[in-house]
């Protein structure tokens, strides 16, 4: 049985797809057979970030409609042979996505994969609800600003009431916080919420802080998940996230921003 992870946020553009690609790759790199599914029907994105957009023949909706088998639609990643992508359809309308159809695809994937990562669309509409419905774990992607935090809070309410686990009265979805696009300098200036501010409202288990980093954009332009850029802070931060999710105890990094040379030499406050 696979573990189903939903990457969700409510608010758009906070880094869900970036995160989905990174953690799916991270899990696969560590030897776990992983599938990542793009639920954002109409806005294909995940395949671009994973650099497989030119190999898309069939998509998620084709599989739901029985027009293609899973094996035909799944694309094996070029960097890691344990990672498979199920792309979204760019053309079909969202109504094709049904709970029954999604359930069937996830059931079939579960037989063969260890982890299934569901990249949720923004919003709290049908697509987002379906992406989370079957989840076991939720990565709540939040930016350090009030509107993102509020939307995450709303999403958490939906996670705890409208999921399969909630409906069946099973153990609730395990919820984790991922604070992304965190700019420590702007936090210090009071232009962004601090980790503390965010946690005062959400109080969730923190999986990691992903710093704002130019390497995210260059990685996505190169069609390569940023976690493969081991020199970048964002890449390291995502690697930490995957390790923590798998049970490793690692101290949190990137809270105080870049360590200056002098600070590194003489030791900072902490």
């Amino acid at each position, binding site marked *: 049985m696979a573990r189903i992870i939903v990457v969700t946020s409510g608010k758009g553009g906070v880094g869900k797809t970036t995160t989905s690609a990174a953690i799916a790759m991270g899990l696969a790199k560590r030897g776990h057979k992983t599938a990542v599914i793009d639920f954002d029907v109409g806005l294909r994105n995940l395949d671009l970030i994973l650099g497989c957009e030119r190999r898309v023949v069939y998509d998620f909706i084709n599989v739901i409609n029985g027009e293609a088998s899973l094996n035909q639609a799944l694309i094996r990643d070029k960097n890691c042979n344990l990672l498979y992508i199920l792309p979204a359809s760019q053309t079909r309308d969202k109504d094709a996505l049904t709970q*029954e159809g999604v359930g069937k695809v996830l059931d079939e994937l579960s037989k063969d994969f260890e982890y299934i990562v569901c990249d949720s669309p923004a919003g*709290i509409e049908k697509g987002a609800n379906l992406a989370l419905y079957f989840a076991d774990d939720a990565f709540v992607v939040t930016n350090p600003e009030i509107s993102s935090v*509020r939307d995450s*809070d*709303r999403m*958490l*309410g*939906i996670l*705890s*009431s409208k999921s399969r686990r909630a409906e069946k009265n099973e153990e*609730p979805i395990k919820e984790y916080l991922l604070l992304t696009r965190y700019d420590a300098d702007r936090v210090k200036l009071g232009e962004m919420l601090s980790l503390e501010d965010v946690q*005062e*409202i959400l*109080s969730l288990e923190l999986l990691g802080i992903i710093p704002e980093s130019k390497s995210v954009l260059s990685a996505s332009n190169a069609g390569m998940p940023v976690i493969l850029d081991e020199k970048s802070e964002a890449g390291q931060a995502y690697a930490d996230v995957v390790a923590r999710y798998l049970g490793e105890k690692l101290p949190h990094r990137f809270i105080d921003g870049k360590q200056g040379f002098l600070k590194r030499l003489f030791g900072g406050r902490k």
Partner: protein
Amino acid sequence: MLNTSTTPALEFKSSTFFSPILILFTNDIAAIEQTLHEKIKLAPEFFKDSPVIIDLRELNKQNQELDFTCVIELLRRIGFFPVGIRGGNDQQNKQARALFIPIDTVRDLGSSIVIGETQKPEAVQQTNIKSETAPPKESVKPAAIPPVPAAATLITHPIRSGQRIYASGDLIILSQVSAGAEIMAEGNIHVYNTLRGRALAGVHGNTAARIFCFDLQAELISIAGDYKTSEDINKQTYKNPVQIYLQDHALIIKEIA
């Protein structure tokens, strides 16, 4: 496709379905409408598309004639989904049936439909509809009706933005209540954490109900319909345990020393 395998076509499960109960004390449709609008204004999110069960026992005890069809039309018009009637007389039950509204036999009311309500046996027995010697009531206002004793509802998980909780007795919450969440109780509300959303106690007119919380940052607090919004809540009480109660129709917020 799905049914070709061993999957059964359906399954029945016993379950509870949450619905507020609307107890009518008057047959004056205009007055009902006005009061409903006032209640909705207090908690629009809570009442939006809400199912509702209409309880006619009080009305029928007072021998007030009521055009049930009119009430249903009114409720549907302002956004409720009537899902049941209880304590109706023959005429009203007949009207309900014609409108496809299930009739709740008074004997087993409560547990099957309403969460958190336990009915006292005496109340349950009051089935008869047109008793000729209805006790004269000094007042038909909601406040005159003694609160229905009900079990407390305990919630241990956070109440997030967009969620709403309704308890027909006391409501005890051990976790935080987020901004954008709404908690309502016919009795008292206890929040042993930060209260950032809206909290409405004594929603059926119990002016003795109180709200207790560890850290008051609420968007709105209300007891028996009297309310204060965050603007009127003294920020000095932030991060301090407080209790809120009614005194001469004024909400008093007092620190618990």
